[in-house]
C-alpha cells in the first residue's frame, strides 16, 4: 500500500517536473515585437536563456574569442499578398536591458525599415536549435482567468477539508473554505469592492470553530506593501444561527519579505529562488451589533447583546520553498489573531467538559492557525493543519485541533472593471 502511494507520488512529481526538463532541451524565442523605430525589432528568448552575449552580438565585441562573420539572424517579411523578402540585420545586441540569461532580450537593427503593412515577419536565430518566431499584424493577447493560489489568504476560491462517512452514525467532516469575487475596481485597480465569504467549521462538538462570515469589503492597495480595508457591511454567524452579528471590519495591513536566491546550476549566469519568507502585520477594528444570541442569558433573547467593539491585531508568517524533495513547493504559513473585546461577548468553553458551556466575558479571544502544505502540482496539495483558539460570533474554543487533508486553491487573475 505504502509502496504504491510512493510510486504514485514519484510519478506525479515527474509529471510536474517534466516541462522544466523539456524546456532545457533547447532555446526558444518567447516573443518578438516591432521596436520603437521602424527598422528595429525586439526579440525575447524564454528565460533562463542559456546564452552569452558573445553568441548574439553582431558586430562582435570580441573578434578573437567570438568570431561572428554574419549576423546570427534571418528576418523575412511577407507582404499582404504573401510575397517574401528578406531584410538584413545590421546590428544585434542585448544592450537595451542587459543580463541576457535573465531577461532574454535582444535588439535587432535592420538595414531597411519594416513596412507598415505585412502579413507576417519570420525571425530565426541561426544558431543552436534554430529557434524562430513569427510576428503577426494582430496578435490577440492570451488571457488566463484563473491561476493557482499560494495560501488561503491569497485565494479567491479555497477549499480544504476532510469527510469521513460513518456506519450507524452521522459522518464527520471539517470545512475550512473561502470564496471572494471582485465586483468592481477603480483608480487603476487601487480600490476594489469585493464580495467575500468564509466558512470554518468541524463536526466535532468540542473542536468546532463554528464560524461563518460574509462581507463586502472595500480595499485600497498601495504600491508600498500596505493595504487598507474600509468598513462596510458584513455578517458573522454560527452554524445553527444561534449567534448572529452585523459587523464592519476596517483594517490596515503592512508586509515585509525577503527572498533567498542561489546560483542556478542548470542555467549558468542566472539565479533561482531558494526560499522566501514574508511577514504581514495587521491592525484593525471589528464593530457592529449582536442581532441574536441564544447562548446568552435567557431573559435577553430579543435584540441580541447590542453593540460591540473589538481591537483586532494580527500577524501572518509565510515561508515558501520551491522545487524541493521532488515537490512543486512546500509552503508554511502561521497566523495569529487576537480579538480584544470592549464588551462581554459569548464564549463557549469546551475544555474539561462533556457538554460545551456558554459564558459571557470580555477576555481576549486568541486564534492561531498553522498550515504546512506539500503542493504536488500548482493547484493540488496535501495539507497538515493545526488550529487553536476561538472565532466569532460564538467563540467556541478549539484546543489544538489537527487535520491532514487535500487542498485545492486557485486565484482569479483578472476581474471585471
Amino acid at each position, binding site marked *: 500500500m505504502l509502496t504504491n502511494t510512493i510510486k504514485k507520488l514519484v510519478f506525479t512529481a515527474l509529471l510536474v517536473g517534466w516541462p522544466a526538463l523539456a524546456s532545457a532541451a533547447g532555446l526558444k524565442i518567447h516573443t518578438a515585437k516591432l521596436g520603437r523605430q521602424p527598422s528595429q525589432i525586439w526579440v525575447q528568448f524564454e528565460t533562463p536563456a542559456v546564452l552569452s552575449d558573445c553568441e548574439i552580438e553582431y558586430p562582435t565585441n570580441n573578434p578573437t574569442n567570438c568570431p561572428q562573420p554574419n549576423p546570427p539572424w534571418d528576418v523575412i517579411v511577407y507582404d499582404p499578398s504573401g510575397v517574401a523578402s528578406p531584410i538584413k540585420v545590421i546590428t544585434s545586441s542585448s544592450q537595451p536591458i542587459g543580463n541576457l540569461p*535573465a531577461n532574454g532580450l535582444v535588439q535587432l537593427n535592420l538595414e531597411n525599415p519594416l513596412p507598415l503593412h505585412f502579413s507576417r515577419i519570420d525571425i530565426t536565430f541561426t544558431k543552436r536549435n534554430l529557434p524562430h518566431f513569427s510576428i503577426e499584424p494582430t496578435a490577440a493577447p492570451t488571457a488566463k482567468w484563473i491561476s493557482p493560489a*499560494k495560501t488561503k489568504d491569497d485565494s479567491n476560491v479555497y477549499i480544504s477539508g476532510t469527510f469521513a462517512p460513518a456506519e450507524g452514525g452521522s459522518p464527520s467532516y471539517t470545512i475550512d473554505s473561502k470564496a471572494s469575487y471582485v465586483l468592481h475596481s477603480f483608480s487603476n485597480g487601487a480600490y476594489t469592492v469585493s464580495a467575500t465569504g468564509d466558512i470554518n467549521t468541524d463536526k466535532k462538538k468540542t473542536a468546532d470553530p463554528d464560524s461563518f462570515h460574509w462581507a463586502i469589503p472595500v480595499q485600497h492597495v498601495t504600491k508600498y506593501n500596505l493595504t487598507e480595508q474600509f468598513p462596510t457591511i458584513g455578517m458573522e454567524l454560527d452554524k445553527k444561527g444561534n449567534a448572529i452579528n452585523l459587523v464592519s471590519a476596517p483594517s490596515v495591513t503592512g508586509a515585509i*519579505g525577503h*527572498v533567498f536566491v542561489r546560483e542556478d546550476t542548470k542555467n549558468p549566469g542566472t539565479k533561482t*529562488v531558494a526560499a*522566501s519568507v*514574508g511577514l504581514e502585520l495587521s491592525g484593525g477594528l471589528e464593530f457592529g451589533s449582536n442581532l441574536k444570541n441564544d447562548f446568552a442569558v435567557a431573559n435577553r433573547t430579543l435584540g441580541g447583546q447590542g453593540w460591540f467593539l473589538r481591537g483586532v491585531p494580527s500577524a501572518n508568517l509565510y515561508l515558501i520553498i520551491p522545487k524541493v524533495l521532488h515537490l512543486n513547493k512546500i509552503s508554511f504559513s502561521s497566523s495569529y489573531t487576537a480579538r480584544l473585546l470592549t464588551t462581554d461577548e459569548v464564549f463557549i468553553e469546551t475544555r474539561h467538559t462533556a457538554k460545551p458551556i456558554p459564558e459571557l466575558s470580555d477576555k481576549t479571544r486568541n486564534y492561531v492557525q498553522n498550515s504546512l502544505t506539500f503542493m504536488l502540482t500548482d493547484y493540488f496539495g496535501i495539507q497538515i493543519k493545526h488550529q487553536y483558539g476561538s472565532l466569532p460570533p460564538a467563540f467556541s474554543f478549539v484546543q489544538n485541533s489537527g487535520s491532514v487533508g487535500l487542498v485545492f486553491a486557485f486565484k482569479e487573475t*483578472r476581474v471585471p472593471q
Partner: protein
Amino acid sequence: MAPKDKWKITPKHFIGFSEVAGGHATISVYGRVVKNTELQPGESGILHPSGAGTPLQLAHVVGYSDQGRCVTLAEPQLVALPVPDGPADSCGWDSNQYVVWKNLPKNWATLHLKASTRSLHSVLKLAAPGVESEAAAPIKPCLDLPAAIALVRSCSKASPDLPLSTQLGQLFTSPTQRNSFCQCVADGVPIDRSQIPSGATNSLQDVVDAIAC
C-alpha cells in the same frame, strides 16, 4: 511638536494659477525631431501653438504625458510640432535620444502625416470613392518591451539575475506584497491592476507580456 507660529509659508508652497487652470488643457509630448523638415506656420496651413511666427518641424512622436499619466503610442506618429523644450525628462524616455515638448494645447490643430511604403496603385485605390479610410484604433496604454521589463524589474525589487520565468509566488510570499507589486506595475503603465496577472504561479514574464505593446 513645534508651535504653530514658528512655521512660515515659503515660495515653494505656491503654485501659479495658470499652471493649475491649464494643467488639464495641455499635454507633454515625447519623440524625436525629423531632420530637414522645417515648416512655416502660415504656409503649411497651421498656426504655431503660441501664436509665434517661428517655424515648425516634423516630429516622430512616441508617447505623451497627460496629467502625470505616461502613454506610449502603439505606433509612432509623425506630426508638426514647434521647437522642443529640451531633452526628455520623464516617462522613462532616454534623454540622449528623445526630446520633450511641454504644455502643448490639447486642442491645437496641427499637421499629422502617415508615412507608409505602398505601391502607387494601392494609394490611389485607397483614395477612390467608396473606400473608407482606416479608422484610428483607440490607444491602449502599454509599454515597449524593454520599458515593460524595466518596470517589472523595478517594481519587483528582485535580484536582476533571477530569470523572468520566476513565479510571483516565489518572490512575494504574502498577498499584500503581491498586490502591491501589481499596483506598482499598473500605475507605471498605467492600466487597471485587474489587467496584471497576479496568481502565485504567474511569472514576471506573464506580467511583462500583459503590459508590453
